[in-house]
């Protein structure tokens, strides 16, 4: 069925893309053929999404060539990419919740009858025919509001078919799907392939790649590693290609003697997010929660801090149980949470630097109901100094700081409370290398002072370099726990992709 002899429908050669100082893509390469499903794998941050966005016309590559049927082409926007017959199914589709399924499929291109009126009957009929073609049942007349992610993807796929897309790119389509839904998606992918479409299937899950793809491309650190027919590779060789790089001297880990158990999580479960999660964090210890995006790491952290309620299990701090769903109780017990999204959740961007730093410690800078500006400023200056925050004036709004210094400001805000347990979610995402090392040094020092640290990170080097113990989650369950000495990238990657049995 493969038609690999003919020219690729679309090809990307030596594509580069930088965002400021960050090189998201240094050498991206992909060739897609009609009637073939092409797998694209790589770690978080390997440049897969950037490559997809270049194909989608969302980003324009800084260098390199895009070939459409062998002819050089340039996509300036999403519209041009769509016109060239490329459809992207994102992990979280963007539908119009107030419009019906049929309207969502045909938005902007509804079939018309006389006087340019929309032919509603034909629209519904054609939508129904599309779903039949895909072998699924979905009511074209229902509103899109409340559709499951899987059904939303179906609508997007149907939409792609109406525009006669030849290339269908699925960016981690299975991340939010149930097992049944994944099976259904696989059948649809096979249908598309049999129709002669070129399909690019981006996924973290290697078993899925081996189940649906005829060819696989591995990326690492923004570079194309290799592309091979699926018959010539094994899970082992793919993983080896995905990881396997040198550890930098970015991780000034101080060896500490773990003390008493500070955090004890026992069989913690939240329906749909995570199941039976158990682990402990001792004082002076850094424990990493590793796993792929969507494995439930942040959700566990949010539950421990009381943002989301848990359905079953217990969380103990220093032997005392926390009530579910109460951040106030969690803070009183000495937990601090540095969230992943500092702009949305960690800082009030329009507040001054000093305001932000003192925000979690208002008890110490107020008298009665009044906040004392002087003591607020002293408090902020003290912490800014300890964390080597680089700022012009403490009264400037916090958005004037660079990304790395914003992260330090969030850390300062929480360290000001002298926490016994510090939870950091992706502490170094999107900050430059120098500040990264400083954040690592800071975490290391805190642990040495006896703070228990729970770190969530998608960067394997960071996990391996910083953590005393590593808890790997896969689809909301603890897959494996490693001591520092036993962990290596291969083993963690195996566990994180759900392949624990074959781990070396």
């Amino acid at each position, binding site marked *: 069925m493969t038609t690999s002899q003919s020219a690729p429908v679309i090809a990307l050669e030596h594509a580069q893309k930088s965002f400021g100082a960050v090189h998201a893509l240094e050498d991206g390469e992909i060739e897609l053929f009609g009637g073939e499903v092409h797998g694209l794998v790589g770690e978080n941050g390997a440049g897969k999404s950037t490559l997809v966005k270049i194909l989608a016309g969302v980003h324009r590559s800084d260098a390199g060539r895009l070939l459409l049927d062998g002819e050089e082409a340039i996509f300036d926007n*999403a*519209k041009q990419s*769509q016109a060239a017959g490329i459809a992207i199914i994102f992990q*979280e589709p*963007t*539908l*119009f*919740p*107030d*419009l019906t399924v049929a*309207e969502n499929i045909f*938005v*902007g291109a*509804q079939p*018309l009858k006389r006087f*340019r*009126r*929309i032919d*509603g009957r034909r629209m519904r009929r054609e939508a129904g025919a599309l779903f039949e073609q895909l*072998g*699924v*049942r979905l*009511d074209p007349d*229902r*509103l899109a*509001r*409340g*559709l*499951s*992610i899987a059904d939303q993807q179906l609508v997007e796929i149907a939409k792609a078919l109406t525009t006669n897309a030849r290339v269908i790119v699925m960016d981690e389509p299975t*991340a*939010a*799907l149930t097992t*049944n*839904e994944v*099976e*259904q998606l696989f059948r649809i992918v096979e249908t598309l392939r049999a129709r002669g479409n070129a399909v690019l299937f981006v996924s973290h899950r290697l078993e899925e790649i081996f189940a649906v793809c005829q060819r696989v491309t591995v990326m690492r650190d923004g570079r194309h590693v290799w592309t091979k027919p699926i018959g010539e590779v094994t899970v082992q060789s793919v993983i080896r290609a995905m990881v396997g790089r040198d550890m930098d001297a970015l991780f000034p880990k101080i060896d500490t003697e773990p003390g008493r158990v500070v955090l004890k999580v026992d069989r913690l479960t*939240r*329906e*749909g*997010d995570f199941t039976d999660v158990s682990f402990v964090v001792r004082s002076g210890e850094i424990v990493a929660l590793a796993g792929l*995006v*969507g*494995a*439930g790491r*942040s*959700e566990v952290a949010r539950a421990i801090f009381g943002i989301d309620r848990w359905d079953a299990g217990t969380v103990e701090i220093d032997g005392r149980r926390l009530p579910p769903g109460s951040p106030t109780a969690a803070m009183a017990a000495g937990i601090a949470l540095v969230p992943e999204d500092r702009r949305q959740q960690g800082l009030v961007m329009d507040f001054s630097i000093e305001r932000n730093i003192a925000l979690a410690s208002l008890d110490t800078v107020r008298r009665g109901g009044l906040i004392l500006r002087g003591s607020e400023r002293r408090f902020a200056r003290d912490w800014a100094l300890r964390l080597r925050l680089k700022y012009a004036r403490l009264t400037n709004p916090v958005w004037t700081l660079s990304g790395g210094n914003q992260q330090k400001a969030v850390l300062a805000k929480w360290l000001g409370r002298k926490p016994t347990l510090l939870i950091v979610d992706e502490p170094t995402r999107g900050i430059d290398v120098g500040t990264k090392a400083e954040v690592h040094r800071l975490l290391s020092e805190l642990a040495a002072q006896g703070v228990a640290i729970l770190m969530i990170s998608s960067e394997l080097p960071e996990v391996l370099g910083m953590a005393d113990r590593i808890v790997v989650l896969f689809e909301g369950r603890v897959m494996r726990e490693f001591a520092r000495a036993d962990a290596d990238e291969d083993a963690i990657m195996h566990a994180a992709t759900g392949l624990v049995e074959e781990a070396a």
Partner: protein
Amino acid sequence: MTSVAEDQGVLEPRSGSHAFAEFLARFRELGIVLALVIVVGAATIDNHLFLSAANVQQILAGSAIIALLAIGETVVIITRNVDLSIGSILGISAYATGVLYVHHPGIALPVVFLVALAIGTACGVVNGLIVTVARVPSLVVTLGTLYIIRGIDGAWAGGNQVNASMLPDSFNKIGYETVLGIPYLGWIAIIAVAAATYAMRSFRTARDFYAIGSDPDAARLAGIPVGGRVFLAFVLSGAIAGVTGALWLSLYASVDAIAGVGYEFQVIAAVVVGGVAIFGGSGTVLGAALGALLLYAINSALVVVNVSSFWSLALSGGLLLAAIAFDRLIALRVAPAMRTRRRARG
């Protein structure tokens, strides 16, 4: 292949609750009609004169003005915007119409309406341009133009008033003549609402309004010219308010500088009671027009049964809150499914 059957089994109860919510949403109009029947019935039992021809005609003509304004307001609100300036546009257009007759007593009827249309359209263009080009929230923009237009109107009219005696009978007739027992104004509103309801269902541009209000970012991704459509919505709303200004004068037959003050809130109340989501994306012109009729009928009924007009204001407010609570209830019914979706996103 077995999983298809399994999927269906899992999906069925969920889509059942959706069907219920959709039923409620789509048959919102029926609920308003029901409320209307209750109001009319109760008022008639208390005072049989409520259903007298004169009173019914007065209700239809008065609510026709609100219903016409509600057509434009509905389009604007569906795009997730709001137009607060319609009362002022109606006022200045009504005064301009009156002044036109004072200075040119023999002027032809169509010309008068064209002038009213032009004034309203111009105001709508200003609103639309500021909202889409300067990207200022429409709430602020139209609050500003509400005062500016009213200010111009006030400076122009001063203490003057145009009376029925200065207007030709051919014009005044629009306000009081009836066909088949329904006033001209009622017919105009019925035809306009029917046409607008049909158009909002049947044209791509109209469906774009819904898409924009439903999710502006997704609309942009889908290639919908968001700015142009929002601009068009404001122009439509202004134009309708302009023409309605002339009709308003024909009904009340006298105009000064405060004509139409506060109408924007009556209209928005009618639109929301009529089931148009205040954050855009859903609702119908028919619902909004029925909302206008219901609110007007309630006010009229309270007068007939001798309740103080202060109470009628409070009741309008209560109805507004009830309508919003009802929408919330529907949203909550959909919420469990939304929650599982959001969780699944991880």
